[in-house]
Protein backbone atom coordinates (compact mmCIF):
# COMPACT_ATOMS: atom_id res chain seq x y z
CA UNK A 1 0.00 0.00 0.00
CA UNK A 2 2.81 2.42 0.88
CA UNK A 3 4.49 1.88 -2.48
CA UNK A 4 1.38 2.71 -4.43
CA UNK A 5 0.63 5.79 -2.38
CA UNK A 6 4.14 7.14 -2.76
CA UNK A 7 3.77 7.22 -6.55
CA UNK A 8 0.74 9.44 -6.22
CA UNK A 9 2.47 11.63 -3.68
CA UNK A 10 5.43 12.04 -6.06
CA UNK A 11 3.06 12.99 -8.86
CA UNK A 12 1.28 15.55 -6.72
CA UNK A 13 4.57 16.99 -5.50
CA UNK A 14 5.76 17.31 -9.11
CA UNK A 15 2.52 19.04 -10.04
CA UNK A 16 2.82 21.44 -7.13
CA UNK A 17 6.38 22.26 -8.16
CA UNK A 18 5.32 22.92 -11.76
CA UNK A 19 2.61 25.24 -10.53
CA UNK A 20 4.63 27.13 -7.95
CA UNK A 21 7.95 27.56 -9.74
CA UNK A 22 6.70 30.05 -12.36
CA UNK A 23 5.19 32.17 -9.61
CA UNK A 24 8.39 32.08 -7.57
CA UNK A 25 10.44 33.00 -10.63
CA UNK A 26 8.15 35.87 -11.51
CA UNK A 27 8.43 37.15 -7.95
CA UNK A 28 12.21 36.91 -8.17
CA UNK A 29 12.15 38.93 -11.39
CA UNK A 30 9.91 41.54 -9.77
CA UNK A 31 12.28 42.15 -6.87
CA UNK A 32 15.56 42.35 -8.75
CA UNK A 33 17.43 45.29 -10.24
CA UNK A 34 18.95 43.48 -13.19
CA UNK A 35 19.13 39.83 -14.10
CA UNK A 36 21.31 39.33 -17.10
CA UNK A 37 21.77 36.14 -19.02
CA UNK A 38 23.18 33.66 -18.07
CA UNK A 39 23.07 34.43 -14.34
CA UNK A 40 21.04 32.07 -12.21
CA UNK A 41 20.43 34.73 -9.61
CA UNK A 42 19.49 38.35 -10.00
CA UNK A 43 22.14 41.02 -9.58
CA UNK A 44 20.67 42.52 -6.46
CA UNK A 45 17.46 43.01 -4.58
CA UNK A 46 15.65 46.12 -5.67
CA UNK A 47 12.27 47.72 -5.57
CA UNK A 48 12.64 49.59 -8.84
CA UNK A 49 9.96 47.44 -10.45
CA UNK A 50 7.44 48.43 -7.81
CA UNK A 51 8.65 52.01 -7.93
CA UNK A 52 7.60 52.01 -11.56
CA UNK A 53 4.22 50.45 -10.80
CA UNK A 54 3.20 52.61 -7.88
CA UNK A 55 5.19 55.81 -8.03
CA UNK A 56 6.38 56.58 -11.57
CA UNK A 57 3.24 55.46 -13.26
CA UNK A 58 0.70 57.66 -11.51
CA UNK A 59 -2.05 56.19 -13.61
CA UNK A 60 -1.11 52.67 -12.58
CA UNK A 61 -2.50 52.58 -9.09
CA UNK A 62 -5.63 54.47 -10.09
CA UNK A 63 -6.27 52.01 -12.91
CA UNK A 64 -5.81 49.12 -10.51
CA UNK A 65 -8.40 50.52 -8.12
CA UNK A 66 -10.91 51.31 -10.85
CA UNK A 67 -10.39 47.84 -12.33
CA UNK A 68 -11.27 46.31 -8.99
CA UNK A 69 -14.44 48.39 -8.94
CA UNK A 70 -15.36 47.53 -12.51
CA UNK A 71 -14.92 43.83 -11.85
CA UNK A 72 -16.91 44.07 -8.64
CA UNK A 73 -19.76 45.67 -10.57
CA UNK A 74 -19.55 43.06 -13.31
CA UNK A 75 -19.48 40.27 -10.73
CA UNK A 76 -22.45 41.78 -8.92
CA UNK A 77 -24.62 41.96 -12.04
CA UNK A 78 -23.45 38.56 -13.25
CA UNK A 79 -24.37 37.04 -9.89
CA UNK A 80 -27.79 38.70 -9.62
CA UNK A 81 -28.75 37.91 -13.21
CA UNK A 82 -27.24 34.44 -12.83
CA UNK A 83 -29.28 33.84 -9.69
CA UNK A 84 -32.52 34.94 -11.32
CA UNK A 85 -31.81 32.80 -14.37
CA UNK A 86 -30.78 29.78 -12.30
CA UNK A 87 -33.99 30.11 -10.29
CA UNK A 88 -36.00 30.09 -13.52
CA UNK A 89 -34.14 27.12 -15.01
CA UNK A 90 -34.16 25.00 -11.89
CA UNK A 91 -37.53 25.72 -10.29
CA UNK A 92 -39.79 26.06 -13.29
CA UNK A 93 -40.80 24.22 -16.39
CA UNK A 94 -41.72 26.32 -19.37
CA UNK A 95 -41.64 26.30 -23.16
CA UNK A 96 -38.20 26.94 -24.75
CA UNK A 97 -36.50 26.17 -21.44
CA UNK A 98 -33.96 23.87 -23.10
CA UNK A 99 -33.14 26.46 -25.75
CA UNK A 100 -32.69 29.24 -23.24
CA UNK A 101 -30.54 27.01 -21.07
CA UNK A 102 -28.36 26.27 -24.08
CA UNK A 103 -28.27 30.02 -24.68
CA UNK A 104 -26.74 30.52 -21.25
CA UNK A 105 -23.81 28.37 -22.39
CA UNK A 106 -23.41 30.28 -25.66
CA UNK A 107 -20.70 32.65 -24.37
CA UNK A 108 -18.51 29.60 -23.83
CA UNK A 109 -18.90 28.68 -27.51
CA UNK A 110 -18.58 32.10 -29.10
CA UNK A 111 -15.09 33.54 -28.52
CA UNK A 112 -15.02 36.88 -26.73
CA UNK A 113 -13.03 38.48 -29.57
CA UNK A 114 -15.66 37.42 -32.11
CA UNK A 115 -18.40 38.84 -29.88
CA UNK A 116 -16.57 42.12 -29.37
CA UNK A 117 -15.86 42.59 -33.09
CA UNK A 118 -19.43 41.67 -33.94
CA UNK A 119 -21.14 44.03 -31.51
CA UNK A 120 -18.69 46.93 -31.86
CA UNK A 121 -20.63 48.69 -34.63
CA UNK A 122 -23.84 48.47 -32.67
CA UNK A 123 -22.31 49.80 -29.49
CA UNK A 124 -21.06 52.75 -31.54
CA UNK A 125 -24.53 53.21 -32.98
CA UNK A 126 -26.06 53.12 -29.49
CA UNK A 127 -23.46 55.45 -28.12
CA UNK A 128 -22.10 53.07 -25.54
CA UNK A 129 -18.75 52.37 -27.15
CA UNK A 130 -15.71 53.57 -25.19
CA UNK A 131 -17.85 53.49 -22.07
CA UNK A 132 -18.11 51.45 -18.92
CA UNK A 133 -21.61 50.31 -19.82
CA UNK A 134 -20.42 48.60 -22.98
CA UNK A 135 -17.50 46.99 -21.18
CA UNK A 136 -19.76 45.81 -18.35
CA UNK A 137 -22.24 44.28 -20.80
CA UNK A 138 -19.41 42.28 -22.35
CA UNK A 139 -17.95 41.22 -19.01
CA UNK A 140 -21.30 40.18 -17.52
CA UNK A 141 -22.18 38.21 -20.65
CA UNK A 142 -18.97 36.23 -20.39
CA UNK A 143 -19.35 35.57 -16.67
CA UNK A 144 -22.95 34.38 -17.01
CA UNK A 145 -22.32 30.74 -18.01
CA UNK A 146 -20.30 30.27 -14.83
CA UNK A 147 -22.63 32.05 -12.43
CA UNK A 148 -25.72 30.33 -13.87
CA UNK A 149 -23.95 26.98 -13.59
CA UNK A 150 -22.67 27.43 -10.02
CA UNK A 151 -25.93 28.90 -8.72
CA UNK A 152 -28.04 26.41 -10.67
CA UNK A 153 -26.29 23.37 -9.19
CA UNK A 154 -26.65 24.80 -5.73
CA UNK A 155 -30.26 25.84 -6.21
CA UNK A 156 -31.13 22.37 -7.41
CA UNK A 157 -29.40 20.77 -4.45
CA UNK A 158 -31.20 23.05 -2.01
CA UNK A 159 -34.66 22.40 -3.38
CA UNK A 160 -37.95 23.90 -2.38
CA UNK A 161 -38.58 22.11 0.87
CA UNK A 162 -37.52 24.77 3.35
CA UNK A 163 -39.36 27.54 1.53
CA UNK A 164 -42.51 25.47 1.28
CA UNK A 165 -42.31 24.54 4.94
CA UNK A 166 -42.00 28.19 5.91
CA UNK A 167 -44.90 29.20 3.71
CA UNK A 168 -47.05 26.45 5.17
CA UNK A 169 -46.32 27.97 8.55
CA UNK A 170 -47.72 31.26 7.33
CA UNK A 171 -44.76 33.18 5.94
CA UNK A 172 -45.03 34.99 2.63
CA UNK A 173 -42.80 34.48 -0.42
CA UNK A 174 -40.61 37.53 0.01
CA UNK A 175 -39.82 36.87 3.66
CA UNK A 176 -39.14 33.22 2.89
CA UNK A 177 -36.66 34.29 0.26
CA UNK A 178 -34.74 36.71 2.45
CA UNK A 179 -34.80 34.69 5.63
CA UNK A 180 -34.47 31.16 4.35
CA UNK A 181 -33.44 30.67 0.73
CA UNK A 182 -30.91 33.46 0.42
CA UNK A 183 -28.95 32.67 3.60
CA UNK A 184 -28.76 29.02 2.57
CA UNK A 185 -27.66 29.99 -0.94
CA UNK A 186 -25.11 32.50 0.34
CA UNK A 187 -21.98 30.29 0.08
CA UNK A 188 -22.85 29.51 -3.52
CA UNK A 189 -23.67 33.15 -4.24
CA UNK A 190 -20.28 34.24 -2.95
CA UNK A 191 -18.59 31.45 -4.88
CA UNK A 192 -20.29 32.60 -8.09
CA UNK A 193 -19.37 36.20 -7.30
CA UNK A 194 -15.68 35.45 -6.88
CA UNK A 195 -15.61 33.36 -10.06
CA UNK A 196 -17.25 36.20 -11.98
CA UNK A 197 -14.83 38.70 -10.43
CA UNK A 198 -11.80 36.75 -11.58
CA UNK A 199 -13.19 36.29 -15.10
CA UNK A 200 -13.96 39.99 -15.40
CA UNK A 201 -10.61 41.05 -13.95
CA UNK A 202 -8.75 38.87 -16.47
CA UNK A 203 -10.71 40.09 -19.51
CA UNK A 204 -8.55 41.73 -22.14
CA UNK A 205 -10.05 41.79 -25.62
CA UNK A 206 -13.55 42.94 -24.67
CA UNK A 207 -12.20 45.79 -22.55
CA UNK A 208 -9.62 46.70 -25.18
CA UNK A 209 -12.01 46.89 -28.11
CA UNK A 210 -15.28 47.99 -26.51
CA UNK A 211 -13.57 50.24 -24.00
CA UNK A 212 -11.56 51.74 -26.83
CA UNK A 213 -8.67 52.93 -24.73
CA UNK A 214 -10.98 55.14 -22.71
CA UNK A 215 -11.96 52.46 -20.22
CA UNK A 216 -8.64 51.22 -18.92
CA UNK A 217 -8.47 48.12 -16.82
CA UNK A 218 -5.38 46.65 -15.27
CA UNK A 219 -5.39 43.75 -17.76
CA UNK A 220 -5.32 46.20 -20.68
CA UNK A 221 -2.53 48.13 -18.96
CA UNK A 222 -0.35 45.10 -18.33
CA UNK A 223 -0.87 43.41 -21.72
CA UNK A 224 1.72 45.32 -23.78
CA UNK A 225 4.31 45.00 -21.04
CA UNK A 226 4.47 41.23 -21.30
CA UNK A 227 6.31 41.19 -24.62
CA UNK A 228 8.20 44.39 -23.90
CA UNK A 229 11.83 44.32 -22.89
CA UNK A 230 12.00 45.01 -19.18
CA UNK A 231 11.13 41.80 -17.34
CA UNK A 232 11.51 43.35 -13.92
CA UNK A 233 8.80 45.89 -14.60
CA UNK A 234 6.61 43.27 -16.27
CA UNK A 235 7.17 41.04 -13.25
CA UNK A 236 6.24 43.75 -10.79
CA UNK A 237 3.07 44.61 -12.71
CA UNK A 238 1.98 41.00 -13.09
CA UNK A 239 2.75 40.18 -9.46
CA UNK A 240 0.41 42.99 -8.43
CA UNK A 241 -2.08 41.71 -11.01
CA UNK A 242 -1.94 38.17 -9.67
CA UNK A 243 -2.14 39.25 -6.03
CA UNK A 244 -5.10 41.54 -6.55
CA UNK A 245 -7.05 38.83 -8.40
CA UNK A 246 -6.33 36.30 -5.70
CA UNK A 247 -6.79 38.57 -2.72
CA UNK A 248 -10.45 39.12 -3.47
CA UNK A 249 -10.94 35.40 -3.97
CA UNK A 250 -9.21 34.52 -0.69
CA UNK A 251 -11.18 37.25 1.08
CA UNK A 252 -14.45 35.87 -0.16
CA UNK A 253 -13.52 32.32 0.75
CA UNK A 254 -12.98 33.52 4.28
CA UNK A 255 -16.37 35.18 4.26
CA UNK A 256 -18.01 31.98 3.05
CA UNK A 257 -16.33 29.94 5.77
CA UNK A 258 -17.45 32.47 8.37
CA UNK A 259 -21.06 32.45 7.17
CA UNK A 260 -21.23 28.68 6.96
CA UNK A 261 -19.84 28.48 10.46
CA UNK A 262 -22.51 30.83 11.70
CA UNK A 263 -25.34 29.02 9.97
CA UNK A 264 -24.26 25.44 10.46
CA UNK A 265 -22.36 25.99 13.66
CA UNK A 266 -19.37 23.85 12.69
CA UNK A 267 -16.18 24.23 10.65
CA UNK A 268 -16.30 22.98 7.07
Amino acid sequence: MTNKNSIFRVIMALVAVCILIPIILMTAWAFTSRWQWPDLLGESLSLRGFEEVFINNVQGFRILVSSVFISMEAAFFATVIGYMSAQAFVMYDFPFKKWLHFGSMLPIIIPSSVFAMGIHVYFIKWGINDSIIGVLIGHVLYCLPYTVNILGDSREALGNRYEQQAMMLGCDGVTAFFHITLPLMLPSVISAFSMAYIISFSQYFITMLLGGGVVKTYAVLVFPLISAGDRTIAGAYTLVFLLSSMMIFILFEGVIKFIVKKIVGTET
Partner: protein
Amino acid sequence: MIKKAVPYILLVPFMVLLLILLLAVANSLLQGLGYMPVLGLNKISLDYYKEVFLNPDFSSSLLLSLYISVISTIFSVVIGVLICAALIKTKRAEKFYRNVLRIPILTPHIVVALFVVIIFSQSGILSRIWYHLNIINEINEFPNIIYNRKGIGIILGYIWKEAPFVAYFVLSFMESISVSYEEAAINLGASPIRSFFSVTLPLSMPAILNAAFIILIFSFGAYELPFLLGVTKPKALPVQAYVEYSHPDLRHRPYAMAENGVMILISLVMAALYFYLWHKKLDGIRKSYDK
Protein backbone atom coordinates in the same frame (compact mmCIF):
# COMPACT_ATOMS: atom_id res chain seq x y z
CA MET B 1 -51.54 33.93 -15.70
CA ILE B 2 -48.96 35.99 -13.93
CA LYS B 3 -47.71 32.79 -12.31
CA LYS B 4 -46.99 31.30 -15.72
CA ALA B 5 -44.98 34.38 -16.68
CA VAL B 6 -42.74 34.25 -13.60
CA PRO B 7 -39.85 32.26 -15.13
CA TYR B 8 -39.86 34.53 -18.16
CA ILE B 9 -39.83 37.62 -15.99
CA LEU B 10 -36.87 36.21 -14.09
CA LEU B 11 -35.10 35.58 -17.37
CA VAL B 12 -35.59 39.07 -18.81
CA PRO B 13 -32.10 40.46 -18.01
CA PHE B 14 -30.54 37.23 -19.25
CA MET B 15 -32.57 37.33 -22.46
CA VAL B 16 -31.52 40.92 -23.12
CA LEU B 17 -27.87 39.94 -22.83
CA LEU B 18 -28.43 36.83 -24.93
CA LEU B 19 -30.04 38.97 -27.63
CA ILE B 20 -26.98 41.22 -27.65
CA LEU B 21 -24.76 38.16 -28.12
CA LEU B 22 -27.00 36.82 -30.91
CA LEU B 23 -26.93 40.24 -32.54
CA ALA B 24 -23.13 40.15 -32.53
CA VAL B 25 -23.17 36.69 -34.12
CA ALA B 26 -25.78 37.66 -36.71
CA ASN B 27 -23.87 40.81 -37.57
CA SER B 28 -20.63 38.85 -38.01
CA LEU B 29 -22.33 36.36 -40.30
CA LEU B 30 -24.15 39.01 -42.34
CA GLN B 31 -21.11 41.23 -42.76
CA GLY B 32 -19.07 38.20 -43.68
CA LEU B 33 -21.56 37.60 -46.45
CA GLY B 34 -20.87 41.07 -47.71
CA TYR B 35 -24.00 42.75 -46.40
CA MET B 36 -22.91 46.20 -45.19
CA PRO B 37 -25.54 48.82 -46.15
CA VAL B 38 -23.43 51.52 -44.53
CA LEU B 39 -20.89 51.05 -47.28
CA GLY B 40 -23.49 50.54 -49.95
CA LEU B 41 -22.90 46.80 -50.05
CA ASN B 42 -26.43 45.53 -50.30
CA LYS B 43 -25.94 42.17 -51.85
CA ILE B 44 -25.29 38.91 -50.10
CA SER B 45 -22.27 37.30 -51.67
CA LEU B 46 -20.00 34.41 -50.93
CA ASP B 47 -17.06 36.26 -52.48
CA TYR B 48 -15.50 37.19 -49.16
CA TYR B 49 -15.70 33.65 -47.83
CA LYS B 50 -14.23 32.41 -51.12
CA GLU B 51 -11.40 34.91 -50.90
CA VAL B 52 -10.75 33.93 -47.31
CA PHE B 53 -10.51 30.23 -48.08
CA LEU B 54 -8.26 30.85 -51.07
CA ASN B 55 -5.87 32.90 -48.98
CA PRO B 56 -2.90 30.77 -47.87
CA ASP B 57 -2.42 32.97 -44.79
CA PHE B 58 -5.90 32.10 -43.66
CA SER B 59 -5.53 28.36 -44.09
CA SER B 60 -2.24 28.34 -42.19
CA SER B 61 -3.88 30.38 -39.40
CA LEU B 62 -6.82 28.00 -39.27
CA LEU B 63 -4.59 24.94 -39.20
CA LEU B 64 -2.41 26.49 -36.51
CA SER B 65 -5.40 27.29 -34.30
CA LEU B 66 -6.83 23.81 -34.71
CA TYR B 67 -3.45 22.26 -34.04
CA ILE B 68 -2.90 24.34 -30.90
CA SER B 69 -6.34 23.68 -29.47
CA VAL B 70 -6.39 19.93 -30.21
CA ILE B 71 -2.86 19.25 -28.93
CA SER B 72 -3.21 21.36 -25.80
CA THR B 73 -6.61 19.80 -25.05
CA ILE B 74 -5.32 16.24 -25.41
CA PHE B 75 -2.35 16.87 -23.13
CA SER B 76 -4.39 18.89 -20.64
CA VAL B 77 -7.05 16.19 -20.39
CA VAL B 78 -4.57 13.32 -19.97
CA ILE B 79 -2.47 15.21 -17.43
CA GLY B 80 -5.57 16.60 -15.72
CA VAL B 81 -7.14 13.17 -15.28
CA LEU B 82 -3.82 11.84 -13.99
CA ILE B 83 -3.62 14.70 -11.48
CA CYS B 84 -7.21 14.03 -10.46
CA ALA B 85 -6.56 10.34 -9.86
CA ALA B 86 -3.37 11.08 -7.93
CA LEU B 87 -5.14 13.73 -5.84
CA ILE B 88 -7.91 11.34 -4.83
CA LYS B 89 -5.37 8.75 -3.68
CA THR B 90 -3.25 11.24 -1.80
CA LYS B 91 -4.53 11.58 1.73
CA ARG B 92 -1.67 13.53 3.21
CA ALA B 93 -1.48 17.32 2.59
CA GLU B 94 -4.65 16.95 0.55
CA LYS B 95 -5.88 20.44 1.38
CA PHE B 96 -2.57 22.00 0.39
CA TYR B 97 -2.63 20.30 -3.00
CA ARG B 98 -6.22 21.26 -3.65
CA ASN B 99 -5.41 24.88 -2.98
CA VAL B 100 -2.27 24.81 -5.10
CA LEU B 101 -4.30 23.30 -7.93
CA ARG B 102 -6.63 26.31 -7.85
CA ILE B 103 -3.81 28.77 -8.54
CA PRO B 104 -3.63 28.22 -12.32
CA ILE B 105 -7.42 28.47 -12.51
CA LEU B 106 -7.28 31.89 -10.87
CA THR B 107 -4.34 33.12 -12.95
CA PRO B 108 -5.18 35.37 -15.88
CA HIS B 109 -3.89 34.18 -19.28
CA ILE B 110 -1.80 37.31 -19.63
CA VAL B 111 0.18 36.33 -16.54
CA VAL B 112 0.58 32.78 -17.87
CA ALA B 113 2.19 34.28 -20.98
CA LEU B 114 4.81 35.98 -18.83
CA PHE B 115 5.47 32.68 -17.02
CA VAL B 116 6.15 30.94 -20.33
CA VAL B 117 8.47 33.78 -21.39
CA ILE B 118 10.38 33.71 -18.09
CA ILE B 119 10.99 30.00 -18.29
CA PHE B 120 11.19 29.03 -21.94
CA SER B 121 12.45 32.04 -23.84
CA GLN B 122 16.00 32.30 -25.10
CA SER B 123 16.80 34.51 -22.12
CA GLY B 124 14.70 32.41 -19.76
CA ILE B 125 15.65 30.25 -16.84
CA LEU B 126 15.82 26.99 -18.83
CA SER B 127 18.27 28.56 -21.24
CA ARG B 128 20.43 29.73 -18.33
CA ILE B 129 20.42 26.29 -16.76
CA TRP B 130 21.47 24.77 -20.11
CA TYR B 131 24.36 27.26 -20.24
CA HIS B 132 25.54 26.17 -16.84
CA LEU B 133 25.19 22.55 -17.84
CA ASN B 134 27.39 23.35 -20.87
CA ILE B 135 24.70 22.33 -23.31
CA ILE B 136 24.85 25.71 -25.00
CA ASN B 137 27.43 28.50 -25.04
CA GLU B 138 25.58 31.38 -26.58
CA ILE B 139 22.17 32.76 -25.89
CA ASN B 140 20.93 32.11 -29.43
CA GLU B 141 21.94 28.46 -29.35
CA PHE B 142 18.88 27.87 -27.20
CA PRO B 143 16.04 26.62 -29.41
CA ASN B 144 13.05 28.82 -30.12
CA ILE B 145 10.51 27.05 -27.96
CA ILE B 146 8.12 29.96 -27.82
CA TYR B 147 7.70 32.33 -30.73
CA ASN B 148 7.84 29.26 -32.92
CA ARG B 149 5.74 28.30 -35.92
CA LYS B 150 4.15 25.31 -34.22
CA GLY B 151 3.01 27.43 -31.30
CA ILE B 152 4.71 25.27 -28.69
CA GLY B 153 4.94 28.11 -26.19
CA ILE B 154 1.21 28.72 -26.59
CA ILE B 155 0.47 25.03 -26.06
CA LEU B 156 2.63 24.93 -22.93
CA GLY B 157 0.83 27.95 -21.56
CA TYR B 158 -2.55 26.38 -22.18
CA ILE B 159 -1.52 23.09 -20.56
CA TRP B 160 -0.30 24.89 -17.43
CA LYS B 161 -3.64 26.53 -17.05
CA GLU B 162 -6.06 23.90 -18.37
CA ALA B 163 -4.74 20.65 -16.85
CA PRO B 164 -5.53 21.82 -13.29
CA PHE B 165 -8.88 23.04 -14.60
CA VAL B 166 -9.69 19.57 -15.90
CA ALA B 167 -8.49 18.03 -12.65
CA TYR B 168 -10.68 20.33 -10.61
CA PHE B 169 -13.68 19.97 -12.89
CA VAL B 170 -13.62 16.18 -12.81
CA LEU B 171 -12.61 15.90 -9.15
CA SER B 172 -15.92 15.71 -7.28
CA PHE B 173 -17.38 13.45 -9.96
CA MET B 174 -14.46 11.04 -9.99
CA GLU B 175 -14.22 11.08 -6.22
CA SER B 176 -17.80 9.87 -5.74
CA ILE B 177 -17.29 7.11 -8.31
CA SER B 178 -13.96 6.16 -6.81
CA VAL B 179 -15.39 5.84 -3.32
CA SER B 180 -18.26 3.63 -4.39
CA TYR B 181 -17.76 1.74 -7.64
CA GLU B 182 -13.98 1.55 -7.75
CA GLU B 183 -13.79 0.22 -4.20
CA ALA B 184 -16.53 -2.27 -5.01
CA ALA B 185 -14.50 -3.51 -7.99
CA ILE B 186 -11.39 -3.84 -5.84
CA ASN B 187 -13.38 -5.74 -3.24
CA LEU B 188 -14.52 -8.11 -5.96
CA GLY B 189 -10.90 -8.84 -6.83
CA ALA B 190 -9.93 -6.40 -9.56
CA SER B 191 -6.47 -4.89 -9.35
CA PRO B 192 -6.43 -1.14 -8.56
CA ILE B 193 -5.19 -0.28 -12.05
CA ARG B 194 -7.75 -2.49 -13.74
CA SER B 195 -10.56 -1.06 -11.65
CA PHE B 196 -9.45 2.48 -12.45
CA PHE B 197 -9.37 1.92 -16.18
CA SER B 198 -12.43 -0.31 -16.40
CA VAL B 199 -14.68 1.32 -13.83
CA THR B 200 -13.72 4.82 -12.70
CA LEU B 201 -12.46 6.19 -16.00
CA PRO B 202 -15.41 5.14 -18.19
CA LEU B 203 -17.92 6.31 -15.60
CA SER B 204 -16.16 9.68 -15.30
CA MET B 205 -16.25 10.19 -19.06
CA PRO B 206 -19.22 12.61 -19.07
CA ALA B 207 -17.39 15.00 -16.79
CA ILE B 208 -14.10 14.50 -18.62
CA LEU B 209 -15.69 15.09 -22.03
CA ASN B 210 -17.43 18.17 -20.66
CA ALA B 211 -14.14 19.64 -19.47
CA ALA B 212 -12.37 18.61 -22.69
CA PHE B 213 -14.81 20.45 -24.89
CA ILE B 214 -14.83 23.57 -22.77
CA ILE B 215 -11.07 23.89 -23.09
CA LEU B 216 -11.05 22.81 -26.75
CA ILE B 217 -13.50 25.50 -27.79
CA PHE B 218 -11.87 28.07 -25.56
CA SER B 219 -8.29 27.48 -26.74
CA PHE B 220 -9.45 27.56 -30.36
CA GLY B 221 -11.00 31.01 -30.10
CA ALA B 222 -8.90 32.77 -27.48
CA TYR B 223 -6.84 35.81 -28.36
CA GLU B 224 -4.41 36.59 -25.53
CA LEU B 225 -1.94 33.68 -25.46
CA PRO B 226 -1.55 33.28 -29.23
CA PHE B 227 -0.94 37.01 -29.57
CA LEU B 228 1.61 37.26 -26.78
CA LEU B 229 3.49 34.05 -27.52
CA GLY B 230 3.00 33.69 -31.25
CA VAL B 231 5.06 34.54 -34.32
CA THR B 232 4.35 36.98 -37.11
CA LYS B 233 3.44 34.19 -39.47
CA PRO B 234 1.38 32.11 -39.12
CA LYS B 235 -0.82 33.96 -36.67
CA ALA B 236 -3.51 32.05 -34.85
CA LEU B 237 -6.95 32.64 -36.28
CA PRO B 238 -8.36 35.05 -33.63
CA VAL B 239 -5.21 37.17 -33.92
CA GLN B 240 -5.42 37.13 -37.73
CA ALA B 241 -9.10 38.07 -37.64
CA TYR B 242 -8.42 41.11 -35.47
CA VAL B 243 -5.59 42.23 -37.75
CA GLU B 244 -8.07 42.20 -40.64
CA TYR B 245 -10.66 43.95 -38.48
CA SER B 246 -8.25 46.80 -37.74
CA HIS B 247 -7.63 47.38 -41.43
CA PRO B 248 -7.99 51.12 -42.17
CA ASP B 249 -10.14 50.47 -45.25
CA LEU B 250 -13.66 49.73 -44.06
CA ARG B 251 -14.41 47.82 -47.23
CA HIS B 252 -12.02 45.22 -45.88
CA ARG B 253 -14.40 44.59 -42.96
CA PRO B 254 -16.47 41.80 -44.56
CA TYR B 255 -13.21 39.94 -45.03
CA ALA B 256 -12.49 40.09 -41.30
CA MET B 257 -16.07 39.11 -40.52
CA ALA B 258 -15.79 36.11 -42.85
CA GLU B 259 -12.86 34.91 -40.76
CA ASN B 260 -14.90 35.47 -37.62
CA GLY B 261 -17.73 33.56 -39.28
CA VAL B 262 -15.46 30.59 -39.82
CA MET B 263 -14.54 30.69 -36.14
CA ILE B 264 -18.20 30.76 -35.15
CA LEU B 265 -19.01 27.83 -37.41
CA ILE B 266 -16.11 25.72 -36.19
CA SER B 267 -16.93 26.44 -32.53
CA LEU B 268 -20.55 25.46 -33.16
CA VAL B 269 -19.42 22.25 -34.86
CA MET B 270 -17.24 21.47 -31.82
CA ALA B 271 -20.21 22.12 -29.53
CA ALA B 272 -22.49 19.95 -31.67
CA LEU B 273 -19.89 17.18 -31.61
CA TYR B 274 -19.82 17.41 -27.84
CA PHE B 275 -23.58 17.14 -27.54
CA TYR B 276 -23.63 14.18 -29.89
CA LEU B 277 -20.88 12.36 -27.97
CA TRP B 278 -22.50 13.26 -24.65
CA HIS B 279 -25.82 11.75 -25.61
CA LYS B 280 -24.13 8.70 -27.10
CA LYS B 281 -22.19 8.19 -23.87
CA LEU B 282 -25.26 8.63 -21.70
CA ASP B 283 -27.27 6.30 -23.90
CA GLY B 284 -24.46 3.77 -23.68
CA ILE B 285 -24.48 3.89 -19.90
CA ARG B 286 -28.27 3.68 -19.83
CA LYS B 287 -28.31 0.68 -22.17
CA SER B 288 -25.80 -1.16 -20.03
CA TYR B 289 -28.04 -0.63 -17.01
CA ASP B 290 -31.09 -1.90 -18.87
CA LYS B 291 -29.33 -5.15 -19.67
